[in-house]
């Protein structure tokens, strides 16, 4: 179980995408884990063959716990062996050629939801005695369609999704179905369903699916405001040159190649951060460590409540088209609640844009251990003086919240000035 952030202690394995005998390649998605940050896709970091799955579905395990045993490619004699029941295998005491250790320490075991036939159930982890509950009976082999939001609601309420009748398009289980079973929906309760008492007291009407994420945000932001002496600067920037350049460029391009101005903002932030280095990096053990690359955490507000901040790597070194693709992909994965594990760690600076809501400026809270966060408000048409003449220009207010332990206001001001300079030269971005 990888650590997907400084505050993460455990995660719940909710889906295996590989089975014993499968060959996996570096970067493949092998499993999905539910965390405070939502469902995260776990990537593999080497080419290997899956020897054994150590953790059963719906098991909560601590960070650092091995999830599977891998055999290195070319050293595996039993690759062709079909993934049969655990009983037919002799458990090796000291498995040879293992890439990961075999000890597993589940924190808590919830009853398995038999969503797959028994033959595909992952082998029970040997290191866990007796506590492995056998699946009651193999349920329907077909996975039901359940909207991600409905799944989260159900988990939050402690509702067994097998009891929920899907009424959405094509029998999809929706939030409304879950809420109806929970008894807070507006319409009459479904005749076939029996309400299950909620696990935690979730007030009706609250955004229940985000409470774990809410706690994670609360912990991180409280720590930030407790430990980090923030200072704030704001600068309104004439965005007209950048927007005109962008509109001209987009008009000549297909949708797939179109840019949004957010990509230009990110690139300009990255270039400014390479000039003012004391804003880009981490504060750890009473000292600032700068980063060679600018890895930007992009705040995406989730519609069910809460935030995701996928990291875009080396933004200063990327051209805007590549940056746009990365941003598009990250936004889409965040919306689907399926960010990749590699996207969730170690940003060196964060950007938060609330432009689509129309507010003028955002004064953001730094994500520890980072030392700065850049905020962008909406693009607004404003009277603007250029060379003594009055013009109507589209402007944007950029703000900087920075850690006074790592930098002073002078450096912060230099950063915002550099940001404005880069945005005035969009061709060079």
């Amino acid at each position, binding site marked *: 179980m990888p650590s997907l952030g400084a505050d993460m202690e455990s995660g719940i394995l909710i889906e295996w995408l590989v089975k014993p005998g499968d060959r996996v390649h570096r970067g493949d998605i092998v499993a999905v884990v539910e965390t405070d940050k939502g469902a995260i896709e776990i990537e593999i970091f080497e080419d290997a063959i899956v020897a054994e799955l150590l953790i059963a579905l719906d098991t909560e395990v601590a960070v650092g716990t091995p999830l599977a045993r891998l055999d290195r490619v070319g050293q595996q004699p039993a690759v062709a062996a079909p993934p049969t029941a655990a009983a037919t295998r002799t458990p090796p005491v000291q498995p040879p050629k293992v890439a990961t250790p075999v000890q597993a320490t589940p924190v808590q075991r919830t009853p398995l939801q038999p969503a797959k036939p028994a033959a595909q159930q992952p082998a029970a982890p040997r290191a866990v005695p007796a506590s492995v509950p056998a699946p009651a009976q193999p349920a329907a082999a077909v996975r039901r369609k359940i*909207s*991600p*939001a409905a799944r989260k609601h159900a988990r939050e309420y402690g509702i067994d999704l097998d009891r929920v009748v899907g009424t*959405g398009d094509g029998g999809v289980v929706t*939030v409304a179905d879950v809420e109806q079973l929970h008894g807070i929906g507006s319409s009459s309760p479904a005749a076939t369903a029996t309400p299950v008492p909620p696990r935690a007291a979730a007030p009706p009407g609250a955004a229940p699916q985000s409470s774990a994420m809410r706690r994670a945000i609360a912990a991180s932001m409280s720590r930030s405001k407790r430990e980090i002496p923030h200072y704030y600067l704001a600068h309104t920037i004439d965005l007209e040159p950048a927007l005109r350049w962008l509109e001209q460029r*987009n008009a000549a391009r297909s949708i*797939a190649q179109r840019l949004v101005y957010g990509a230009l903002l990110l690139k300009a932030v990255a270039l400014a951060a390479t000039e003012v280095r004391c804003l880009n990096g981490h504060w750890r053990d009473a000292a600032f460590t700068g980063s060679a690359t600018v890895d930007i955490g992009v705040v995406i507000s989730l*519609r069910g409540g809460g935030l995701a901040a996928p990291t875009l790597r080396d933004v200063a070194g990327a051209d805007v088209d590549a940056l746009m693709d990365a941003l598009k992909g990250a936004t889409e994965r965040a919306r689907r609640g399926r960010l990749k594990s590699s996207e969730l760690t170690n940003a060196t600076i964060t950007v938060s844009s609330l*432009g689509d809501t129309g507010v003028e400026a955002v004064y953001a809270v730094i994500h520890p251990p980072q030392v700065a966060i850049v905020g962008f408000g909406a693009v607004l048409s404003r009277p603007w003086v250029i060379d003594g003449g009055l013009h109507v220009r589209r402007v944007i207010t950029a703000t900087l919240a920075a850690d006074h332990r790592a930098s002073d206001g002078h450096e912060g001001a230099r950063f915002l000035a550099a940001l404005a300079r880069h945005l005035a030269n969009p061709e060079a971005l």
Partner: protein
Amino acid sequence: MNPTQLKDAVLEALYSVAPEAEGEQLDPAANMRDQLDIDSMDFLNFLVALKDAVGVEVPEADYMHVATLDDCVRYLAARLPTAT
């Protein structure tokens, strides 16, 4: 593609950027972005998905004509590639 198929294609593209909306009620005559809280990046992803599914590109200048589900279906129906 008939209007029903077009509507399904639009909804599918919409669900790809707003999965939590899948199966939920959507007023076909009201602004989709407002109803589902879709930001500019989501909207672009929606248009890309729509282009892949239906083969129609919506230029930036026409964004106002695809704001509601009904408008969007009408807009696409008038511009479907004849080959299909």
